């Protein structure tokens, strides 16, 4: 969560009142991104529009490629990154789906591309509002995934994403995710540190490999089964390194700027909790009210907002669940034929525990349907009631017309 505006009234700082999308554009500007590839898609478009304005006004010195598709947007970033430049693009939903093949290539090529994704539901029917079905479908590719809960976090995550992606122990692309309209088009205060301080904290990219005629390499040629697996193992190893580096980068950023440092899980009133509510993004902030209200009613519930989905914070969630009797997960995602991704992967985290808590999971807010603290309270109370009877449930759809929570 962002610190108060007063605390940031320091010399050289900018205090902006901007949308999540413009917060992303400001982060790109102060991160001195060198190549931006842009293709419009609602509700991402105002990110690349704002960057175009920065570039055309000369406020950001960057090559800006107005590509003809998202497939080309990501490929242009792949090329520019391979040429040693810091790169950025942004997309949503169908644009992200069209990029799917390129996302594999970016990760496999070990290129530190940073992309903002405005989470939007997939068609048909056309729906421009939020859920996580677009990014969750891309979670197996080797991209780090960070999910934001306010506009300051969008700004902060993008700055830190470059530091993380460009670390020689990582060299993986990073997706910074923000919810359609709830963040993308909602104005909030965002504090921007002075450029020279950002420059000091985020030095220019030193690529781990690049295309250089003086030291020619062939990148990405045929790899036989005798070696392919080793390349893939190295990606997994890099993800393990992210587990170690991400909180350190977050602490360093927080110490330096007093802003939101990256971390895997944000907790609220978990210390004495015997039940745990897990969710993500903006729901993970609004749920604080839910937890307060549940506690007023005598339920010792704590809240965990999962901020990073890849690598999945399996140790953190396992640690939080230890000694807890009941877990409630609310997903803004559905894997058809299964349940939500957060629920499924939380179960993976819980499995090794000797004393496993019961767990009930919900699917909510699909296609931008509002999920308020009251909705989450209803879900949590039902879940606690079911589990009290020893009857946990999986993948319960919340708020569907004609479906009652019996």
């Amino acid at each position: 969560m962002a610190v108060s505006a007063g605390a940031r009234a320091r010399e050289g700082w900018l205090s902006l009142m901007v949308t999540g999308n413009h917060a992303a554009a400001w982060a790109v500007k102060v991160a001195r991104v060198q190549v931006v590839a842009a293709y419009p898609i609602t509700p991402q478009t105002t990110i690349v529009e704002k960057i175009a304005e920065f570039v055309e006004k000369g406020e950001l010195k960057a090559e800006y490629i107005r590509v003809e598709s998202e497939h080309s947007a990501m490929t242009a970033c792949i090329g520019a990154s391979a040429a040693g430049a810091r790169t950025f693009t942004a997309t949503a939903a169908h644009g992200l789906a069209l990029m799917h093949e390129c996302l594999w290539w970016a990760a496999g090529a070990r290129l530190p591309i940073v992309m903002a994704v405005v989470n939007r539901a997939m068609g048909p029917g056309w729906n421009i509002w939020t859920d996580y079905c677009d990014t969750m479908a891309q979670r197996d590719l080797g991209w780090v995934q960070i999910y934001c809960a306010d506009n300051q976090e969008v700004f902060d995550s993008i700055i830190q994403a470059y530091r993380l992606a460009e670390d020689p122990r990582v060299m993986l692309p990073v997706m910074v995710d923000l919810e359609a309209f709830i963040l993308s088009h909602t104005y909030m205060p965002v504090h921007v540190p002075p450029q020279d301080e950002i420059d000091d904290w985020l030095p220019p990219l030193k690529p781990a490999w690049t295309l250089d005629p003086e030291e020619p390499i062939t990148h990405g040629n045929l790899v036989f089964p005798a070696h392919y697996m080793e390349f893939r193992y190295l990606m997994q190893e890099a993800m393990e390194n992210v587990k170690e580096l991400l909180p350190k980068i977050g602490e360093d950023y927080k110490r330096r700027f007093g802003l939101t440092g990256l971390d895997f899980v944000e907790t609220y009133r978990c210390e004495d909790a015997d039940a745990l509510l897990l969710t993500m993004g903006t729901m993970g902030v609004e749920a604080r009210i839910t937890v307060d209200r549940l506690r007023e009613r005598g339920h010792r519930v704590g809240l965990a907002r999962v901020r990073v989905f890849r690598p999945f914070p399996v140790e953190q969630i396992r640690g939080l669940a230890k000694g807890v009797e009941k877990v409630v997960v609310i997903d803004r995602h559905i894997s058809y034929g299964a349940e939500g991704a957060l629920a499924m992967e939380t179960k993976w985290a819980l499995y090794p525990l000797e004393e496993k808590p019961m767990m009930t999971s919900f699917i909510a807010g699909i296609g931008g349907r509002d999920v308020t603290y009251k909705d989450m309270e209803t879900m949590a109370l039902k879940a606690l009631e079911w589990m009290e009877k020893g009857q946990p449930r999986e993948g319960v759809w919340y708020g569907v017309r004609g479906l009652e929570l019996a």
Partner: protein
Amino acid sequence: MSSREVSWAIRELPREEYLLPGHAACAGCGASLSLRLTLKALGKRTIVVVPACCTSIIQGPWPKTAVAVPLMNIMFEAAAVCAAGIAAGLKARGIEDITVIAWAGDGGTYDIGLQALSGAAERGDDILYICYNNEAYMNTGIQRSGATPYAAKTTTTPVLGKREHKKNMPMIMVAHGISYVATATPAYPLDLMRKVRKARDMEGTRYIEILSPCPPGWRFPADKTVEVGRLAVQTCAFPLWEALWEDGQQVIRLTGPSKLIAQVPELKLPVEPYLAMQGRFAGISPEDVRTFQAWIDAAWERLLKIAEF
């Protein structure tokens, strides 16, 4: 004529080789010959982007390579924009003396890669895009592409042969109004190298189409690659020309043997000997030969109306 234009004699050709011996091309491969000549003409300060195509194999498997300039492999449909991204990245870093080329087959150009290529051309991205056209998906086993000629048998047109004519990709690029468009074939190596060098020294999007005869795909003996390529030009099935901008006008100019044929029309050979050399046209009906000839004649007449010679 551009002042930068070079005209090599064979003894003056660059000695440096950037396609090294030991590459994995088939015997008699026109594409590998095209790549060797192209890289010779371009020189060391070159970066090559290769989408899925025969050159994915020709370059050799990891951890080795047969290409002595930086080479980036990329997805099938993405060569043009990957090259554009590299060019933008280099420019952002202040590096301006490197030529970035996309080296794609006809499938990656005419079919799956057309969108990205058209986008790059419309933007005028600073790349040299080379389509080495072997007239089918050869790397996957000779399937029909948008560049496969009429009546050619492929593994997806195995009995009847292709029922459609190829599209005129070089003219599609001319219609984009880019800096330079040319056709070439390794059967006329000096013409090919002159065009590559000329394109290298220009800015903006440049496109060269190199007809690269393919012994296994076209089914002719591996020692006939140059002969087949020459016949393609001499029959006007594949005329040699270039299109460039002079004094604000886009000019199309025939080159080499095609220029000569335009001046001396009797030199134009009928299509039969060209078809007869290639097993992919085996058993072609007289009617299909006439259709093929009529298509060549119409395209050639159209070219003569708009080209200088």
